[in-house]
Structures are given as structure tokens and as C-alpha cells.
């Protein structure tokens, strides 16, 4: 994890627009060679600005950017060993597919036969063979996206930057492209820095994720780290669905909820600390109030106040105390028992599924 081997290394990078707007706030980040790294966050969190700083399309107000150990300083984008896939694709409408893909090589004065060969390879890589002479206007959204990808990859950048490249595609195509992007990354073996606001996309594709909020990195870690052990309430709330319950730590590994129930959870703060207990809706089970909960697990009594049908699953909202409700996601399988509003139930979950976050 030394600076030298990092593909991209940001050191105390801050970007201000005007006097008041801080788009990126003192970010430190090392992205490893060959890694698929996602910057995940809501719109306006500074993820795209961070990407543009790496690309050289913006310069940081403070801090430094290194790419494979080389200080970038005020080096313009055309002199950096990175290429970008833009959100709008930014294909040149007055050039056909082959000319779009070959643009970078021509600017680098690569000779003609070489350009033709590499453009052909890149077009094969993104499976657009046969569409070389088409104009971007004549392509579907998915095809345009592939052209943008080929146009960047053909230059063999050391780092590929992708700014919400799948944002404009419909769900089905997006899922196909996610897998394809991952395959292409394996094939070319270069570092991908991927900006997205879609947490599902980040979780499925990334080796590591940097969750951003208000210009800062809220957490950096593997998809599992970020999902299973969110370090703060922002990450807990933004990545996936999460039930949040106010609680107080009574002793290590045990918390008391508002309603007085004492349950076991992952804790690290000292006794008496007010915390928020987080638990994923899919890690909860519902039993009838008359049945016995399995030993060694947490059990909370409550009554069903709402049910929502999602197709592949159902979500029940359960009132567990006067002030708190909790959501339970149940897979929609034939053997499942359906509950109705008003049913008295017991919610049960493993102590490991509940995590207390101090904030």
C-alpha cells in the first residue's frame, strides 16, 4: 500500500468553486493498480469533481494528485495517462464510430496502419464490429456507451475514469453492461475509477468503494465492508436499506432500545453512549407472537402496521414500541407465511446483524 504502487493517489485534495462552495473537502485516497474502484455518493457530493480532478479537467485548489507516483500538478488533461468515459458519452457527432475511436491515437500522431489496427481491436473488444462507419446518432444508447468506452480504452490509458457511464441506460441494459464492463476490466487489466450514485452498481462491480458525502470520503472499503460494517450513519443510510433505531449502550455488546428492550449487538463505544442501532431489513425474521424465538438470538415483540409488495419480496413495517418501527424484508417464496396488518409478531435476528453506530 505504498504511494509508489498506487495507480492514483490523492493527497489532501480540496476544490473550491468561488468562495463558498467546497465541492471536494480535503480528500486522501490511494487507488491500487488494477483495482476497480467506485466513488459512490448522492448527486452533489463531489464525486464527479474528484474524477475531473484526476482527469485534469479541474485543478485542485489545494493538495496534490499523483498518477503512478508522478505528480500531476497543473498538467492539462491531454498530457495525463488517463482517459475518461463521460456521462453524456460526448461522442463527436461529426465523426463516424471509427473516427471517434481513433481520435486520441491520431492526436498522439500514431501512424495510420497502427491506428486502423488498434481501432479495429477496440471495436471488437466492445462488440461493435460492423458499425465502424455509422454516425453516433444512428446508434442506440447502449451502443453509444460502448463507443465511448472503446474511444477511451484504445489509448491504453494507465487509469480509465468513468463518470456514471450507465446512467442513461434502462435497467436491463444497465445490468448487462455492468457485467460486461467488469469483464472488460479483467481483460485489459487496467485501473478503473468509476463514479456512480447507484449503490447496487457500486456493490456488484467494485473491488473497493469510496462512499462520498458533502465533499468528503465517508468510508473506503470493500463492498462487504461498506455494506456489513458501515462506519457512520451516512454510509448506513445511503448504501442499501437500513432500519435505524435510537439506543443506549448498557454494557459491551448490549444496548437498550427506546421501548426498554435490551438486545445484543456489535458495539465499540463505552457504556452509556447514545447510539443508533442499525439492522438490515433482510436479516430479520418474523414469527407469530405465540411461537418461541430460537435461543441465542435477539427477539422483539411488535405488531404489523403496513405491508408493501415488491414482487420478489415483501416488506412488513412492524411497530416495536410507541416511537419505533422496524422494517422486515421477506423473500416471496411459496412456503412463506403472509401476515396482515394488526398481527402480533416476534421479530428475531442474530446479534451480529445489529450494529451500534455512534454519532
Amino acid at each position, binding site marked *: 500500500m505504498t504511494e509508489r504502487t498506487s495507480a492514483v493517489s490523492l493527497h489532501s485534495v480540496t476544490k473550491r468553486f468561488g468562495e463558498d462552495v467546497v465541492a471536494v473537502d480535503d480528500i486522501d485516497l490511494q487507488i491500487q493498480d488494477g483495482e476497480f474502484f467506485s466513488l459512490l455518493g448522492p448527486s452533489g457530493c463531489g464525486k464527479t469533481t474528484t474524477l475531473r480532478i484526476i482527469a485534469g479537467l479541474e485543478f485542485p485548489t489545494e493538495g496534490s494528485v499523483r498518477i503512478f507516483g508522478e505528480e500531476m500538478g497543473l498538467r492539462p488533461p491531454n498530457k495525463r495517462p488517463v482517459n475518461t468515459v463521460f456521462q453524456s458519452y460526448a461522442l463527436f457527432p*461529426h465523426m463516424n464510430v471509427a473516427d471517434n475511436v481513433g481520435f486520441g491515437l491520431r492526436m498522439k500522431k500514431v501512424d495510420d496502419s497502427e491506428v486502423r489496427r488498434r481501432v479495429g481491436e477496440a471495436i471488437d473488444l466492445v462488440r461493435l464490429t460492423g458499425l465502424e462507419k455509422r454516425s453516433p446518432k444512428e446508434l442506440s444508447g447502449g451502443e453509444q456507451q460502448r463507443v465511448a468506452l472503446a*474511444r477511451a480504452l484504445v489509448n491504453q490509458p494507465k487509469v480509465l475514469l468513468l463518470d456514471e457511464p450507465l446512467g442513461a441506460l434502462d435497467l436491463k441494459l444497465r445490468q448487462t453492461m455492468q457485467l460486461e464492463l467488469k469483464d472488460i476490466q479483467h481483460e485489459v487489466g487496467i485501473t478503473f475509477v468509476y463514479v456512480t450514485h447507484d449503490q447496487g452498481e457500486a456493490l456488484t462491480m467494485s473491488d473497493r468503494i469510496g462512499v462520498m458525502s458533502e465533499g468528503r470520503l465517508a468510508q473506503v472499503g470493500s463492498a462487504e465492508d461498506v455494506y456489513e460494517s458501515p462506519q457512520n450513519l451516512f454510509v448506513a443510510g445511503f448504501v442499501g436499506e437500513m432500519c435505524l433505531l435510537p439506543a443506549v449502550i448498557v454494557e459491551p455488546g448490549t444496548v437498550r432500545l427506546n421501548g426498554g428492550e435490551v438486545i445484543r449487538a456489535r458495539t465499540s463505544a463505552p457504556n452509556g453512549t447514545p447510539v443508533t442501532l442499525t439492522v438490515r431489513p433482510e436479516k430479520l425474521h418474523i414469527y407469530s407472537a405465540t411461537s418461541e424465538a430460537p435461543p441465542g438470538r435477539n427477539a422483539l415483540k411488535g405488531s404489523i402496521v403496513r405491508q408493501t409488495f415488491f414482487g420478489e419480496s415483501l416488506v412488513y413495517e412492524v411497530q416495536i414500541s410507541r416511537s419505533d418501527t422496524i422494517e422486515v424484508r421477506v423473500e416471496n417464496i411459496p412456503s412463506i407465511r403472509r401476515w396482515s396488518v394488526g398481527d402480533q409478531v416476534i421479530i428475531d435476528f442474530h446479534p451480529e446483524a445489529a450494529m451500534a453506530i455512534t454519532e
Partner: protein
Amino acid sequence: MTRLHHGAAARPGVDRSLAIFGSLVFAFLYLPILVVVVFSFSGSESVGRWGGFSLRWYEQMLKNEQLLNALENSVVVALVSTVVATVLGTAAALSLDRYRRWVGRGAFDGLLYLPIIIPDVTMAVMLLLWFTSTGVIPLGRGSITLAHIAFNISFVAIVVRARLAHMDPAMEDAAADLYANRWQAFRRVTLPLIMPGVLGGALLALTLSLDDVVITSFVQGPGSTTLPVYVFGLIRRTVTPVINAVSTLMIAVSMVLVLASLTLQNRTGRRTESKGDRPMKRKPLIEKAESRENQQ
């Protein structure tokens, strides 16, 4: 529903009266032109009487040295002012589009439109006063050309800005990201994309320069009269059928220019339109793409 039926029933009548009204407007606009064109080929000495087909007025036109001199002035002034105004107007449009945070941008933006808004005669007086009081440029072809450049910059800038407004700012980012330096990015990406606007603006400038009477007649010098000003002077002294021939020539040139300009603007419009349509067209295109993928 009943109302719709009423509407449908009433329409043939409305259509007919609209058609009649339309033809009247056309007649009002184009009959005078038609008359001029027809009588330019008349052999008669009288402007308004048909004297059999003849090209004598065109012949006389080509023998009239003053007229040819005015024509030459017009063409030279128009070409030079168009080229200069197009370059400067495009540069102004680019700078206004790109640098949004400099002091005085608002003032510059407003002032750029001034030559379009203020009456020609005001502009003409201002320019004349400026030329005579500074004395740097003697009144003549040079002063006319400068005056034409002055008002044409605004028109070019407006047309080019409209085009720029439709351009994705990421285009230049993409060019820079693909190793183009700033000049290459402009030359290979920005300029081709705004070219219809630049050419449209240039044609507009050319037409305006060829047509201008008011401003030119104020800032001209001896021997530097342009064609429209010469014709205007001629018509005040004597009315000869030569004017018909000259007018026909000018109409023909103007029409060619206007048609060319319209064609370019149209192309611009179509491109913008197809851009706007894209989200609606996307769905079927994707299905097509997917079915192609499935076949593989």
C-alpha cells in the same frame, strides 16, 4: 365531441379563406418583384411599358462604368467585411459562451446587441462623426468596410451563440481528454460543430452588407459608392429601365444568398431537433440493439 365535429365542418371554409389571404400576401410581396424582373427584359424606353423581349438594358448596365465601379465596391466591401466580421463575431460568441465569470461580461454582452437594436441612421451618424473627428481613416471603401464590420459582428455573434448553446460542453473536455491541445480541440471538434452557425452568420453578414443603403450613404467617400446607394441615387435623378436590370441582378444574388443561408440554418435546426428527439427514439433502438445481440 360535438364541438370537434363543428370544427371539422367549419374547416374547409376557413382553409379556403386562409388560402385566399395567403395568396394575396404573396401577390403583395412578389408582384412588384415580378414586374421589375419582367420589365428588365423589355425593349421599351419607358419603365412601365412592354417593348418586346430585349437584353439592351443588361447591355447598357455592363457599359455603365459608374455602375460597374459601384458593383465592384459592393463586392469588395461585402467580402472583406464578411470575412472580418465572421472571425471577430465567432470569437466574441466563443468568449461569451466560455468565460462566464469575467468582469464586464454582462456589459459586453449587452453592447454586442446594440448595433442590431439601434436605428441604422443613428449608427450611421455615430460612425460618420467618429470617422470625421478622428480622421484616421478617410471616408471611402475603408470606412464603409469598417462600418459594415461593426454591425455585422453582432449578427454573426448571435447566430454562432445560438449554435454554441446547443453544443455539449463535454465535447471539448472529451477532445482534451483524448490528447488534443486547445487549438486541435477547436479545429477538430468545436469548429466543425459550430460550422453551420458560422456559415449561416457569414451569409447573413454578406447579405446585410450587400443591401445596406443608410449607413453606407453616410460613411462613403467620393468614388466609393456601393451598388444599392448608386441605384438609390440614380432613381432620384432619372428613372431608366437600367434600374430594372440592376434590380433583377441584385434580387437574383440576394435570393441565392438567402436560400443558401436558409439551407444552412435548416440543417442546424434539424440537428438540434434530432438531439431533442433522442430520448423518445432510444427505446426502440435499444430493442433493436438487443435483438441484434440475441442473434449473435
